[in-house]
């Protein structure tokens, strides 16, 4: 049976067909749906782990115990999981272990565009790169065999255009492989120096064997055509080369580490001019250069951003498609940056922070949008969990006075992911940081995943909620306040008090994400034109529904979800519920 699947769905399907028993992940675009789809199969246990490190530890525990396991994360998640990853290459596995790393060239939804292949190489594990959903499924299945044959974790590296593109996939049945025998084997799984020294020798020998394997593996193949130009490529870029360079010979690499050196040399010899077309880093190209083979790559293509079919046309000097020219208007068009949604609970907080001109050490989530105009209420955003440490550092460098108008802002899921350790540092090292945990009862930006604070697992089972108040108190924070971020007066008062206090404090702003709120009255508000004084105070909320029209404002009732925050800031009582009295 054939089905149109995203790359992410295909990976989940591949894991199921391969007899995987445990799937773990922390959500992160573009990888999130892999594990959401994995959770749809009853035969597989699937969990949202608190972070990627825990996800890999759970996955590798399952593998060591003899079951096949898949662990999925976005590229920056691999940074978090790097610690177990590097040593897992030493221990090897028992049941197959696959790490899916989803890169985001072009940074559609990421804070950097690092290339995960560097991580695979540094950890000394094989890397597979599928070029469509069919390969995403096939390579996932193949990876488990490879993992078990060579006793190593395997990395499946995808990019946004593989993860989120839909192409047709031939489905197969699940093959129950069962559990491998579990035997205690301390010299293999306990990495004290004496044992690790022995294992490192095995890692290096394994890389040689994997390199031999890659020479003849069906993962790598040559498509001969005209030999004037030869292109070595992998992943979705292969599809773009096929689309644009119809005459070129292509060496398509499905396995990009270790590389098939002999196959590449043979291909290079038979073409007049050799190109490597790869997104992001010159990973393949650098190897080829180190072997003394003449090759073009990043002299023609950038290391920055995506490569698309039109990029290849332009960089290879081919004529562009005859299109509609809008260049004279295109540059002047207003941009459309993403915004906090209508009704977003974070809006209240950032409105007050903006008003108080507070220095805000920020974090990763929907609330990062508080950094954009007109709120402009964020000073730093580095990585998951960085806000609290950043705020401590600011205080330690500039002194306690600086902390009197300084906060760390972090979401509930991000706090669990890696904010707790920062908060422990606040208390332990006597910082006076005010930490604001934005508790919107979900993991918002990635599309509403459960987390330990929501009361449900990935599979929808109810569990005991993690109690944020008790947790931060247990860390040693004595000042803990819970406030509704739409109660602006109270929020401002609490903020001023907590920032003024020369001791650690935590403010939990608790209000459900507007997109999952099924309870509140969603009747939109309207503005009485007679009553509106044109003060424009409501415009400072950066609500996409409030539109300036002449000297007054109007509400876009098609978008308004009736949250009423604008009512709170309007001094003229000009904003009323649609259909209500006194309009």
């Amino acid at each position: 049976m054939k089905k149109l699947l995203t790359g992410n769905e295909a990976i989940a399907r591949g894991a199921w067909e391969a007899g995987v028993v445990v799937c773990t992940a922390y959500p992160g675009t573009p990888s999130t749906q892999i594990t959401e789809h994995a959770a749809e199969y009853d035969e597989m246990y699937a969990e949202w782990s608190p972070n990627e490190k825990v996800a890999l530890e759970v996955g590798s525990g399952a593998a060591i115990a003899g079951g096949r396991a898949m662990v999925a994360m976005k590229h920056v998640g691999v940074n978090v999981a790097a610690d177990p990853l590097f040593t897992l290459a030493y221990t090897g596995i028992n049941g197959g272990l696959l790490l899916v790393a989803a890169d985001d060239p072009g940074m559609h939804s990421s804070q950097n565009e690092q290339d995960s292949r560097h991580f695979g190489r540094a950890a000394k594990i094989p890397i597979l790169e599928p070029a469509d959903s069919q390969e995403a499924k096939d390579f996932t299945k193949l990876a488990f065999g490879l993992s078990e044959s060579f006793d190593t974790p395997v990395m499946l590296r995808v990019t946004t255009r593989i993860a989120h593109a839909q192409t047709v996939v031939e489905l197969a049945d699940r093959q129950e492989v069962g559990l491998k025998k579990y035997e205690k084997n301390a010299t293999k799984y306990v990495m004290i120096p004496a044992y690790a020294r022995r294992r490192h020798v095995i890692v290096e020998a394994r890389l040689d064997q994997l390199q031999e394997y890659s020479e003849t593996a069906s993962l790598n193949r040559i498509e001969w055509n005209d030999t004037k130009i030869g292109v070595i490529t992998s992943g979705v870029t292969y599809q773009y080369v096929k689309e644009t360079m119809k005459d070129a010979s292509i060496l398509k690499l499905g396995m990009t580490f270790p590389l098939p050196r002999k196959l590449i040399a043979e291909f290079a010899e038979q073409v007049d001019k050799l190109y490597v077309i790869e997104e992001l880093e010159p990973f393949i190209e650098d190897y080829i250069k180190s072997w003394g083979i003449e090759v073009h790559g990043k002299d023609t293509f950038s290391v920055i951003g995506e490569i698309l079919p039109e990029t290849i046309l332009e960089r290879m000097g081919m004529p562009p498609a005859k299109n509609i020219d809008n260049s004279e208007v295109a540059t002047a068009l207003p941009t459309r940056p993403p915004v906090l949604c209508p009704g977003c609970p974070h809006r209240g907080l950032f409105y007050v922070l903006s008003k108080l001109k507070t220095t805000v050490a920020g974090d990763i989530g929907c609330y990062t949008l508080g950094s954009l105009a007109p709120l402009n209420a964020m000073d730093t955003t580095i990585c998951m969990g960085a806000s609290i440490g950043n705020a401590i550092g600011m205080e330690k460098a500039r002194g306690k006075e600086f902390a009197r108008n300084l906060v760390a802002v972090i979401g509930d899921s991000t706090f669990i992911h890696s904010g707790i350790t920062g908060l422990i540092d606040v208390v332990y090292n006597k910082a006076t940081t005010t930490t604001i945990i934005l508790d919107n009862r979900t993991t918002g930006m990635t599309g509403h995943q459960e987390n330990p604070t929501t009361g449900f697992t990935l599979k929808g089972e109810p569990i005991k909620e993690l109690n944020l108040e008790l947790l931060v108190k247990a860390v040693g924070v004595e000042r803990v306040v819970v406030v509704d971020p739409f109660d602006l007066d109270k929020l401002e008062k609490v903020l001023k008090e907590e920032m003024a206090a020369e001791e650690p404090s935590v403010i939990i702003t608790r209000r459900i994400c507007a997109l999952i709120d099924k309870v509140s009255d969603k009747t939109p508000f309207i503005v009485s034109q007679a009553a509106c004084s044109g003060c424009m105070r409501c415009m400072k909320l950066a609500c996409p529904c409030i539109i300036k029209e002449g000297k007054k404002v109007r509400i876009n009732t098609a978008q308004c979800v009736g949250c009423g925050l604008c009512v709170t800031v309007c001094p003229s009582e000009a904003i009323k519920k649609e259909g209500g009295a006194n309009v």
Partner: protein
Amino acid sequence: MSDITNILIVGVGGQGTILASKVLAGVVQKKGYEVKIAEIHGMSQRGGSVFTQVRYGKNIASPTIPHGEADILLAFEKLEALRWLSYLKQNGIILVNDQRIDPMPVIMGAAEYPSDAMDVIKSKLQDVSVIDGVSEATKAGNIKTVNMVLLGSLSKVLGFEEEVWIEVMKETIPPKFLDVNIKAFQAGRN
């Protein structure tokens, strides 16, 4: 048209472009075509500029439509139509929803909305269909079905039988919302 038909759907996050492309993909699959779709999830969905690229036919390599090779541009919003216009091939077709959604820079007064968007589009293309999606969706019974009104308009251009579209809608849309969506689709089609 060549072996491949390229349809670019653009709009603003939250307008329902993804559901529209899902139905379209189902229809062309039922008609026996190979299909590839590219879209972006994540941050841009929060009210940002969004797009879905649908390609169907045979021997499709790239999941994205190469710049300048879209046969049809289905735009859910006027400014987005103008922004993505250069993806359209020279004798391409455009279907535009006559709706203005101000982006934040315009709301703040930092940038001006191109009020002549429709005139600019018409000056560059012969085949322009303007659709009043909001009115049609409201008439159908739910303003949120603008996406199905537009899909109905697109269905006229593509020419597959109405029954196939309805069949796929039945498979894709929850029963609770099906009737109003079909009504909106038919309003766009007729």
